[in-house]
């Protein structure tokens, strides 16, 4: 069995947004309002409580390797973003109620019947994925189609993707496949291609992502952090500092008490 995940190969994405729609349709999510953003063809903007797949459109003033755009320095990067289901997940480690759990498939799942909407996970996610819906009160995000996985089915987005940009399967197998794809691209002259988050070695901050990507530009261009880290990995320093401050507080409290007592007079 093993852990499942997504490998999203952005070099074959055609930006059709079938993944966005399939996700909404399967999960029966509400819409997020109708607003024209002027950000290329991205009128969704971001992942959120009711958008669990989001296609990014990057019009950039740089050519794509092996492509003649006819427009000089120009290319259009297309990228289907999703919850990364980190191996070490910021949201999971921050959740105080234990609503966010890791499933038997290795995915990160928010139990809507437990979540009390404290919103801590929202600030703890280094990718800005999970969000709390204001009128519902709870936090929501991609479930990696947990209900479909339990029935041995493929997640809706991977099922709908016409070009197999989104590939679903065993994580180990996906990682192998991804590596081969990168090698093939490099051989073909697309040396900018690399994998993002495919292992703990390349992304120690999250210990690797269950939903990793093949990109051809800096992560920032796709609105992904270059070096994300689960906040808890750094919390030791904060606790230590708090401990120090606490000692100071205790010492001061004692000192002030003694001081007061000493100058008390009759």
């Amino acid at each position, binding site marked *: 069995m093993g852990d499942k995940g997504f490998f999203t190969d952005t070099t074959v994405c055609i930006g059709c947004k079938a993944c966005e729609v399939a996700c909404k349709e399967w*999960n*029966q*999510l509400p*819409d*997020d*309002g109708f*607003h024209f953003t*002027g*950000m290329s063809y991205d009128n969704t903007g*971001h992942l959120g409580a*009711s958008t669990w797949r989001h296609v990014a459109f*990057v*019009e*950039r003033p740089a050519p794509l390797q092996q492509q003649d755009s006819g427009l000089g320095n120009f290319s259009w990067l297309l990228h289907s973003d999703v919850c990364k289901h980190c191996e070490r997940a910021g949201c999971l*480690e*921050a*959740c*105080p*109620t*234990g609503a966010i759990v890791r499933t038997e498939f290795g995915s990160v799942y928010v139990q809507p019947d437990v979540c*009390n*909407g404290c*919103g*801590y996970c929202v*600030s703890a996610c280094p*990718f*800005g*994925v*999970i*969000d*709390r819906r*204001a*009128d519902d*009160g*709870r936090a*929501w995000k991609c479930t990696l189609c*947990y209900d479909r996985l339990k029935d041995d089915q493929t997640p809706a987005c991977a099922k709908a993707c016409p070009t197999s940009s989104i590939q679903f399967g065993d994580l180990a197998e996906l990682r192998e496949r991804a590596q081969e794809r990168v090698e093939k691209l490099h051989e073909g002259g697309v040396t900018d291609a690399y994998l993002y988050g495919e292992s703990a070695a*390349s992304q*120690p*901050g*999250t210990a690797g992502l269950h939903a990793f990507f093949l990109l051809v530009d*800096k992560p*920032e261009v796709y*609105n*992904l*952090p270059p070096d*994300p880290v689960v906040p808890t990995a*750094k*919390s030791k320093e*904060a606790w230590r*500092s*708090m401990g120090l*401050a606490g000692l100071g*507080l*205790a010492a001061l*409290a004692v000192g*002030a008490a003694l001081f*007061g*007592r000493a100058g*008390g007079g009759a």
Partner: protein
Amino acid sequence: MSFLFPADSSDRAQTRDGRNVDEKLGALQGEGAHQDIRRARIDSAFPLPEAGRGEKTAPTLQGGATPDYYGQPLLKETVWTWMIPAYFFVGGLAGASSAFGGAVQLFGGGKLKRLERQLRWVGAAGDMASAALLIADLGRPARFLNMLRVFRPTSPMNVGTWILSGSGACNTVSALLASQERGPLKRIGDAASLGAGVLGVPLAGYTAVLLSNTAVPVWQHARRSLPLLFTASSVSCAGALMQLLPGHSPAERRAVRLFAAAGMLAELAAGVLLEREAHLASGSGLPAATDPVAKPLHHGASGALWKAAKVLTVGALALTVMPQRRRTTRFTAGALGLAAGLCTRFAIFHAGKKSARDPQASFQAQRAGMGAAELAEAPRSFRLLVLR
């Protein structure tokens, strides 16, 4: 683009929640079908330009040394409301008060009785108010007990909830039994007070760890100095509040003034440290006012609040340290100190919101090695690999 006639009735059912599922025909069994929608609107954590308001977004051009995705935020802004920084203030105050109360009980030599009683009540009231604020800010307040479902040490919020619960219980007992002069009840009350005192120490400063344990740049990168700041601020607020309360003996006043002044001084020092820590994180080399991580402390509402906090703290410190011959001095010192504490908490809170909104804060800090590369265990080769 509204037209003269109202939407067709055929569409009325569908405009309710944008799910396009007629309940009479289709089963609402999707994961998102549980989402309760009162109105169809975009999520507020990432404001996008709304149609018709004529807002413009920069066109397309990516590239350059510090790219981002159309200036869009990377992170989600915190969903917390004013109640949370208010809780930082109230809870921190309560925690420092409890700690002081415990110390006074043990080392006061019986001379600081009134102070001790006041501290117990402040602690109890503060804990109650804290709980109320926290519960009210939840998305689903009715489920507040779920906080105590698990004990999760990785989550400062969970740890804090336990601390607050414990502290609240102890403080309530200790406050109710505060007027006991002798006997077993007094001993219980004293023990509770000590318990609250011990718990009050972390209560005074753990909220900083809560903030640091997020992806928000200005919070995360200031994680060494933020607990110092919050603890100090808790102390100074507790001291300030005490200066407002009447009926203290000279001994009590001395204790209070030392407590408050030390707290205020520490707060100022910690503030300086925090600014430095935040400034150095991004490695941008820019002056603090334009540095992406430190910017929120120097600009806008959060910048104004931060400045106000410093000014008010200095004022409160001055009035605390100088001989307080008149009651007005004490009151003013107390009021300024409380105001300073409020400003500090709200400044940090709003700075965090702003910091989350700025993608460059995260990107540049990470490029400067302040992401996972900062971890001791991150391999050297990784550090070279990721930062291309």
